[in-house]
């Protein structure tokens, strides 16, 4: 499933990269050592010249090793099936680099996180504010620097009460804060919507309220083969893709050959995860639209998939299968039969149900034309996954950078051009069917090889990039192996990281009543839409609006 122009593109890519520094091939990635001042130019060439996609930025404190800070930008170049990692070494006294955000707006968050966590300054960044750290966090303390012990308790004074409140806008429009948290659902996020009547004119976002510092924990006190289990707990729905991504990064760094059967088992579990995640989302989307009958129906279909995962791996959600070098659980013969039977039913029921749902006019009209994201905006903010594919961007890590067994299986990547919520719904629906077909193919062609290759040595300070297509989009992990069977630097980047900024574009010009489904349409976490506080700017009074009122559009400012 590779593009026919792979070879040409690759030569072009290597020629381009070697203009800026020495190029080294590491698994599926090119590592190029560049000068910091060349970064915007390299970024420009890769993103706009070659048609690549910016993935993320990573900062690392290498002072104990060679006395510098390292700044990595990761790009995906699909036409070459390669990732590109640019590495710039920065002096320890005043680490700074020119920002690439003016060239690629999608790099905004990535660079701000590096600034917060490692303390690298970005010159020319259009929004040099904190992203991850709270506003009352003391200046000059950067948690991911190596001289910051992981168990240090910092006494922080005051409360983090500064929000992204824009006063001029607040004077002119009503402010509708959504979030930051609700006791019943998972993740806190805070959206601030500025509304003129019923129409949203501007939106702001603040997140990272549950930053758990798992990178620090993994780097400080976990061993190489313990990290997959914390990686699996990054996400409450698609954790397996994270542990897979981490293991692939380490395998790529240490050049570990993974047995064929392990690759197939990984593929099967990854796709089972995608099926249940998409069915979950489709149900939740209908729930947000007030159509709970459909919600229950999708979740009824989803339940046998969860049971199947439980039977294959021992748990409904945390499969615990991945370790560096392979997988721990085999798929038994009798399970193959059972899985095929369940998947056949999932496909039939999903098709029948979706046809029924799409015949209900109220459901379709609440999704059609709502939450529009243009192809150009999607490209500029570097969205990934179904959100990108619903806006006409034909990218999918499974096809562009074949990993696990995807290179040997046959599947289609659904792409739509409408860019609205309905398109995102349909892309996910088609993906469920493709995933069912992928699992079927993999189950029928399971190679008979060992499950795990444990014959490897942990060489310190090797860099590896792992990438998987999570249900929500491209998942990228960068690993630098460390001394004593540890990781020196591990940076996971979940797909929602690139997708959440897109909601702000989608919300502009939308009706307030559509805000929940728009925010939900990228499949982020969800608690934020549950209830909101309306501040009447003129009187200064406030009142709570329930989720139900907001969802049904019954609220009038």
């Amino acid at each position, binding site marked *: 499933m590779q593009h026919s122009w792979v070879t040409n593109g690759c030569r072009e890519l290597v020629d381009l990269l070697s203009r800026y520094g020495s190029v080294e091939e590491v698994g599926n990635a090119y590592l190029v050592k560049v000068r910091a001042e060349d970064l915007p130019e390299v970024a420009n060439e890769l993103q706009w010249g070659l048609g690549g996609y910016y993935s993320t930025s990573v900062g690392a404190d290498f002072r104990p090793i060679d006395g510098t800070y390292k700044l990595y930008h990761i790009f995906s170049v699909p036409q070459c099936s390669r990732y590109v990692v640019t590495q710039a070494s920065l002096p320890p006294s005043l680490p700074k680099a020119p920002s690439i955000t003016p060239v690629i707006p999608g790099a905004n968050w990535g660079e701000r996180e590096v600034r917060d966590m490692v303390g690298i300054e970005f010159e020319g960044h259009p929004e040099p504010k904190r992203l991850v750290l709270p506003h009352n966090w003391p200046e000059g303390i950067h948690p991911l620097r190596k001289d910051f012990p992981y168990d240090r308790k910092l006494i922080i004074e005051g409360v983090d009460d500064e929000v992204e409140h824009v006063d001029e806008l607040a004077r002119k429009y009503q402010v509708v804060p959504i979030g930051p948290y609700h006791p019943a659902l998972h993740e806190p996020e805070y959206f601030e919507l500025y509304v003129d009547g019923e129409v949203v004119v501007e939106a702001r976002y603040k997140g990272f309220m549950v930053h758990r510092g798992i990178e620090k924990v993994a780097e400080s006190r976990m061993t190489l083969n313990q990290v997959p289990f914390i990686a699996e707990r990054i996400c409450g729905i698609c954790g397996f893709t994270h542990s897979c991504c981490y293991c692939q990064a380490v395998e790529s760094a240490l050049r570990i050959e993974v047995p064929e059967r392990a690759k197939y088992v990984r593929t099967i579990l990854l796709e089972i995860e995608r099926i249940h995640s998409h069915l979950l989302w489709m149900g939740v989307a209908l729930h947000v639209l007030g159509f709970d*009958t459909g919600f229950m129906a999708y979740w*009824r279909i989803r339940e046998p998939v969860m049971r199947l995962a439980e039977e294959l791996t*021992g*748990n409904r959600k945390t499969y*615990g299968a991945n370790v560096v070098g392979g997988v721990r659980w085999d798929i038994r013969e009798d399970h193959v039969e059972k899985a095929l039977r369940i998947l056949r039913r999932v496909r039939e029921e999903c098709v029948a149900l979706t046809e029924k749902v799409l015949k209900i006019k109220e459901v379709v009209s609440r999704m059609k034309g709502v939450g529009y994201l243009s192809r150009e905006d999607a490209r500029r903010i570097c969205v990934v996954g179904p959100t990108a594919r619903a806006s006409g961007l034909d990218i999918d890590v499974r096809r562009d950078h074949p990993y696990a067994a995807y290179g040997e299986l046959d599947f289609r990547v659904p792409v739509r051009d409408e860019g609205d919520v309905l398109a995102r719904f349909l892309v996910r629906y088609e993906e469920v069917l493709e995933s069912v077909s992928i699992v079927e193919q993999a189950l029928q062609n399971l190679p008979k090889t060992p499950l795990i290759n444990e014959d490897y040595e942990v060489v310190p300070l090797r860099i590896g990039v792992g990438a998987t297509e999570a249900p929500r989009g491209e998942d990228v992990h960068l690993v630098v192996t460390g001394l004593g069977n540890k990781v020196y630097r591990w940076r996971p980047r979940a797909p929602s990281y690139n997708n959440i900024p897109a909601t702000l574009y989608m919300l502009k010009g939308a009706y307030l009543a559509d805000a929940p489904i728009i925010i939900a349409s990228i499949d982020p976490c969800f608690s934020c839409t549950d209830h909101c506080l309306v501040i009447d700017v003129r009187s200064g009074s406030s009142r709570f609006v329930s989720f139900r009122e907001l969802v049904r559009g019954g609220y009038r400012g």
Partner: protein
Amino acid sequence: MGRLGFIKDYLRYGVVTEKYPYEPVPTPETFRGKPVIDSSKCLGCGACVNACPANALSIEDDLRGGIRWVRLFIGRCIYCGRCADACPVGAIELSREFELSALESKDLIQEVGLRMVKCVICGKPFTTYRLVREVMRELSPDERVLTLVCPECRAKLTAVNTSFARW
């Protein structure tokens, strides 16, 4: 027609929710639930402690009492089963039990106490009887005596022996 289709579905599939907790929920045989340590097999070697990603397992030596405690705190356990992978004698298995809430945190602790061996030179307890027995099986009779010497004393002995050898 769309809505009627849903009613037809409901009639067809009936009730799909379960009466849990009023009825038990079946678990598959592969299910990974509460780990159980078989105290008759455990050697106290600590392989599980090294493997555990969540630090749910720990080892503590009570030197005065001469007992090594292997402790499993279910409150930290993530049911990954790495302990079962690591155990050289198969003393840990993951059961199918998953209803683990308790009123007090001490009820979430499983402990195995193992008698320790005293070093024949310094008299300090340093490892468990079972581990020594297991190691002795692998060794020739004249090597066995060294298994009863603690690592520190063994290092001193080796230093003395090698310095004599150099003379």
